[in-house]
Every structure is written in C-alpha cells, then in structure tokens.
C-alpha cells in the first residue's frame, strides 16, 4: 500500500490517496475517510449483497481480532485472507486487536501477554500469537498489537507500562513482519499509546519512528478504553493531542485515529491532518436506534436535530424519510414510521435500514470534508458541522432539565441514557440473531 498527500487545505487538513493494494490493484481510497466496522469479518448487520447497495466502490474494513478470532481455522483452510473469506473480496481489510466499541475489563496483562476479549471469553496472547493470527487473516493493513486501551485520566504508571509493553510488542511485530511471506502484501502500522502522559507518549512515538522504514502509517490510541467516561474529554484537550502528535509524525505516513468519536471531534482531528477513522460511531448510533442527519449545505442553517432517535413516539405517524434528499436506499424507500415500528417490534430490519442510512450519511460527511479541503473552505465546513452537533447536545441537556421539572425518575434515566449514547456510549453487543 502507498499513501500520498494530494492536496493540503488552509490548516493542517489534507486530502490523501491510499493506493497500491496488491489484492485489488485498481482501488483508490481517498482520505479523510472512515472504515466500515466489522464483526466476524462482516460489516455489522449488512450482507455483501446489501453492502453493494450502499457502496459501489471498495471500502476500508475495520477488522478487530477480538470479534473475529473464531474465523482462524476457516481462514487457514481457505488461505486467501479475511476480506475474501467474509464475502467482501474487493474491500480493504485493516486488522487490529480490539474494537473501540467494546467494553473490556481493565488490566489483566501478564508479562508479555495481552488479554484478547472475545465472545468466547478471555484469551491471553503474545505478540507472536497475534502475528500468527495475522498471517492467516492476511489483512491489507495491519495495526501492530498494542496496549492502547488506556484513558487520558490514567496516571504516569499506567501510561509508562503501556508504552513499555507496546514498544516491545512493536519490536516483535516488526521482526515477524520482515520475516513473513504471508504478510508481504500487508502494510504495517505503528500504534501510539500512553497518550495520557505527554512524555511517555512522545517516547512511544520516538520508538515507533525508529521502525519508520517498515511502517506505512501510525495509529493514535491510548485515549479511550471504550467506556463512556473516557470519551467525555473536552474538545480542546483532544485538539491539543491531535495537533502536537500530528506535528511529529512524518507527512507521508497515513494517520489513523481509533475511537468512537462524534462528528465535532472528527472534524477537529481532520483539521490537524488525521486521515482515517475506525467507523464505530455510525454503528453506535444504529445500535441505539438513532440516525445521523447532518445538514451539509453551508448556505442554510436548520434547527433540525442532527441525530434522530427513531424509538421516539413522535415518529409513529411520520411517513417522511429519515432525511429529505438523502440518496440512500433507506431514505428513498422507507419512512421514519416504518423504522420506528421495526424498532418497537425488535425486528432485525431496523438495524439493516439504519445501517444503510448511517453508513451512507457518515461517508457523505467525509465526502463533503474532502470537497471543502479541495476548495479551501474546510474551516467553515468544520464549524457548520460542529455547530449542529453542539446544538444537538444542548437540546438533549435541555430535555433532561425539563424532564426533571416534570419529575419522572424513569424519564430522567431514559434521557440520561440517550445523552450517554449520543456522546459515545458503548453499543449493545449483538448476540444471536433476533
């Protein structure tokens, strides 16, 4: 894989190209972009047949080992890598250790072993075992194994440990990577951890860059451990990290950000030169029965909320689409009232229809971002999106206040839950099928 910056905007934002994928040589992924989050190798809720109705071009797939380790034996027998095995042969797989939408217990490290939290329970794995997995997964892009599930609230000791461990993992990963025939068509990405402690974080970056010649990019972790609290970071604080870390990473390395970040934070990261996001955010909305409905038109300011909760009774008789003028299949053919009915009756099609819309619309947010970078208007676009998101959060908080006046504990709890979800709570893990 190759990464090239095509154009830079007025700030640090940039348009880049990911090309040279050996398995799909004609594929070009334009950045900034978000990957599609997968479970068991499949884009969550969508079969390959349905995914074709959302995207006609190859997409990045975010493939956490924690939810796909059970594919190993099948993959070994098939020998052609996880994307092909999961029925998505033209797409680009990015493999990593954990998904950022998972809640996992803290700690559990033992020496050079990392806990891998799967649906079947905890598996302790070494960097070598991780690379064994990767040799059968054969992803196009491979994030090195790392201790990245710490938060900005963690102290010196936790960050120190994380960096120490991650550096030694990376040494092992690079060693294995260089020697591996199976991973010849794979690009390796170093993972920054210890982000909660500035010096430790930079120590980590320095170590990663020592392996620079073998790495195609860098991923930023160590900010969130998947919990709600860890995502409650002031934008300013994150902006500082995006800026200072972004500055020391060479421009020709693709910049990944892990974490279930809201549109405002994503815009901030883009502005400081971050290129690829992990796709957990639209999934979180879908699993909560919510739909993203941003207004991309800078010439109009609408008061409509940019996130709709389709569980709400108010949509019972609303026969309009989720979002007027949205080009997705859900909006072209189905109504808010129908999706609300599917949610109420816990029918699986609700997740399918919401995924189609949320993935399309989330992708559109990036399409517009690239267009505005190209026309040097990204700053205005960023403010336009951030404004809508802030308005939404403020509105939810007002809802909560007014509910408090009316005094129903249950309502307050429910509204609180909504706010949690909107701010980046963990989506419910899907078990069984409906």
């Amino acid at each position, binding site marked *: 894989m190759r990464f090239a910056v095509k154009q830079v905007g007025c700030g640090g934002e940039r348009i880049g190209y990911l090309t040279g994928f050996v398995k799909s040589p004609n594929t070009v992924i334009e950045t900034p972009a978000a990957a599609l989050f997968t479970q068991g190798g499949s884009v969550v809720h*969508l079969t390959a047949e349905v995914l074709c109705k959302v995207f006609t071009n190859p997409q990045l797939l975010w493939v956490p080992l924690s939810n796909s380790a059970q594919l190993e034996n099948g993959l070994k027998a098939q020998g052609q890598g996880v994307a092909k095995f999961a029925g998505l042969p033209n797409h680009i797989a990015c493999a990593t250790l954990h998904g950022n939408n998972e809640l996992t217990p803290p700690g559990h490290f033992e020496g050079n072993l990392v806990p891998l939290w799967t*649906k079947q329970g905890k598996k302790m794995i070494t960097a070598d075992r991780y690379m064994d997995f990767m040799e059968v997964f054969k992803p196009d892009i491979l994030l090195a194994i790392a201790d990245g599930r710490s938060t900005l609230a963690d102290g010196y000791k936790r960050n120190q440990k994380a960096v120490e461990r991650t550096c030694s993992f990376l040494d092992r990963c690079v060693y294995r990577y260089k020697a591996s025939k199976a991973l010849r068509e794979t690009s390796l990405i170093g993972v920054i951890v210890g982000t909660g402690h500035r010096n430790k974080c930079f120590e980590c970056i320095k170590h990663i860059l020592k392996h620079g010649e073998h790495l195609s990019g860098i991923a930023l972790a160590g900010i969130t451990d998947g919990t709600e609290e860890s995502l409650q970071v002031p934008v300013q604080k994150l902006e500082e990290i995006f800026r200072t870390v972004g500055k020391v990473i060479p421009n020709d390395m693709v910049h990944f950000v892990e974490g279930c970040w809201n549109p405002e934070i994503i815009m901030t990261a883009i502005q400081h030169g971050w290129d690829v996001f992990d796709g957990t955010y639209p999934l979180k909305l879908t699993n909560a029965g919510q739909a993203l409905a941003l207004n991309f038109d800078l010439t109009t300011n609408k008061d409509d909320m940019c996130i709709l909760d389709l569980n709400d009774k108010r949509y019972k008789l609303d026969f309009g689409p989720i979002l007027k003028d949205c080009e997705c*299949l859900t909006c072209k053919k189905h109504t808010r*009232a129908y999706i609300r*009915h599917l949610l109420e009756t816990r029918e*699986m099609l609700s997740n399918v229809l919401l995924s189609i819309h949320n993935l399309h619309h989330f992708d559109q947010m990036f399409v517009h971002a690239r267009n505005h970078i190209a026309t040097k208007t990204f700053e205005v676009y960023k403010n336009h999106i951030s404004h809508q998101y802030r308005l939404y959060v403020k509105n939810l908080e007002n809802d909560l206040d007014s509910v408090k006046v009316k005094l129903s504990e249950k309502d307050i709890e429910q509204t609180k839950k909504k706010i949690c979800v909107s701010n980046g709570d963990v989506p419910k893990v899907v078990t069984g099928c409906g």
Partner: protein
Amino acid sequence: MGSKSLALSFHVQAECKTSRARAGIMKLPHYEVKTPVFMPVGTQGTMKGLLPEQLECLDCEIILGNTYHLGNRPGTDVLEKAGGLHKFMSWNRALLTDSGGFQMVSLLKLAEITEEGVKFKSPYDNSEIMLTPEKSIEIQNCIGADIIMQLDDVVQTTFQDYDRIKEATERTSRWLDRCLKAHKRPSEQSIFPIVQGLLDRELREKSARDHMSKDVNGFAIGGLSGGEAKDEFWPMVSLSTGLLDKNRPRYLMGVGLAIDLVICVALGVDMFDCVYPTRTARFGCALINTGQLNLRQKQYETDLNPIDDDCSCSTCRNYTRAYLHAIVTVETVACHLISVHNIAFQMRLMQTIRDNIERGTFPQFVNKFVNELYSNGDFPPWIINSLSSVGISIVKK
C-alpha cells in the same frame, strides 16, 4: 379453465396427466402469482431482516403478514394513515393476511371462544379484547392484503372431543357468512374460507361443501399440520382438494417442508405458507435437497463449499460453509444469509415443480425427488400411499 373476479382471477395453465397437480396464474391486484406457490411469512411487516428488494430478487411473489401482530403494532391507525401494509413496508407485490384467530388461540392460553368471537386478554396491556369475525375483517381491510382469511374457530389438530370439533366446524361456516357480510373491499381483497373439521372425514366434507356454495375466489384448508401423524394428514388434504372447485386456488395453511410441498402439490394444492424456512435459519439450519445442514456443527469449520453447489442465491455465490459456521448464531448477518438461501431454496423447489408440471414430467420429478431424499430406499409408507392415491408410484432407483 379458471375463475374471474376483480380481486382475483385464477387460470390453470397446465395439469399433470397423472396426479392432481396443476400449474396456474393467480392474478391479484398487486401481482400475478405463479402457482403452486410458497409464501414466506413476514409476521410483523418485515421478513427476517431482508429488504423488500431482496425478496423480489428471490422471486417471492406473495408474502404473509399476521393480522394479530399487525393489529397490535403498528396498529390500524398507523396502517390506515400509511395507506395499507403494502405502502407501510414498501412491498409492491402481493400480500396475504391470516385472520388473527389462530395466533390468538395458539399464543394465548386465556382465549375463550364463544359464538360472538374469540375473547382474550391483550398481552400488551392486559385489557380484555373480543375478536369477532367482523373485527378481523375490519383489521384486514385496513391492512389491505390481496388475500385475507375468514376468522375460523380453531381447535388443536390433535383434539379428540367430537362435539367440540363439530361445533367449531359449523361455527366456522357461520362466521364465514359474517366475514363476507362485513367485507368492505371485495373488489380489492378476496376472503378465503377455511375448510375445517380436523381429522373427521364427514365434518371436513360438510365444511368444504358449505364453503363451495359461497361466492368466494379461493379456499384455504386449515386445521392440519398441527402435530397429527402424516398418515392422518394426507388423507384430509386429499379429501379437501377432491371436493373443492378446480377453478379456484386452494391454499394449505402452515405447510412448508420440501417433501410435504411435493406431495401436497400432487394432491392438488396451489398455495403454501410456513415460518419454518426463516425460523430455522436463525438456528443455523440451511435447507438442501437431502434435508438440511446444521451449520453450527464442527464438521463445517473448514468446509469451503457453498451451502449448495446447485444454488445460485447470493449467499451460495459469496460465502462458504466454513465462513457461515464461524459466524452462525453470533452475528445477525449469518441469520440474513441463511434466510436468503432458505427462501431461495423454497422458491427454486416451487419453480422446479411448476416447470415439471408444464413439461408433463411431474411424476418423474416426484420419483427423483423422493429417491434423492430417501437415498437408502426406505420410503415412509405415507409417501408411497399418498402418491399412489393420485396415480404416482415410487420406483426405487
């Protein structure tokens, strides 16, 4: 040969020269349905996570909705304002709804049946509700399916008390009159009466003859497939199809196993429905000609074949058994993928049946099918007997 009405016209296009099997076209307000047809069940206005365009792609021409569920959620107020279920769920082809009676009696232990209707406690808010024939038709008129069912007095198939069965059979005929009288949209929707009588020949015959005298566009055969022995099941199907008008479609309720479809088509049935193909998909069971694969089994872990080499569904084109094994019962996608295959399987079977009836090779097809399913030559007696009753003898290959 056939029947004509605005709401339904039925043309038999080919008849098997040996058995009672026939292939036809049933013209409904929303679609022309090729018979014999299998109708997948989409209980609450959706089919197990599949998009309407996927169902079209699978050649589904008519699907089922459940009146009892739809009447509760989203409710008639929503359906009315949406302009009916077709528009609400964005399905442009044909729909059929049941009467809601069966659901009530099977789901709710508290149901009490009187001459007026079925009285039960709502599981949603515990209030007492009376479902009368008039109410059932009112809801079904609102849902707007192409074919709707009369409310019938349902008795468990294995029930033994003659007096109760007799009462239920006769009441079903009385309720039919009330349903027909209450029907507000006869030019858009056809009410099918339901032949009752459980396993009693005389009662079933009486029921069929009663219904035959009514101005209806088709018939349903009910009260079967409820746990009775196969030896008791097929003679009742045969008796019913033998009495019912040849010019109108016959619908056998709740039957969907491949072998049952083949046999009952031979006995003269035109329409079937069953939750089985989609329900079993949830548990990882994929349908194939020789039965089914339980994809949870360890033996599929490294099996790189598709579910069925001969199947051209999107699941068999894109996915291996090994992959499905790895995600089955864990990811919703697995459920969608197997549902797609299972519906494709049912549709392909019905297409093959129709093709063979049209080509005049239906008896040969039945022979091949039975031999493949029971490759050891151990044919169950009910299969031999039912087929020989319509002139098809099974020859061991």
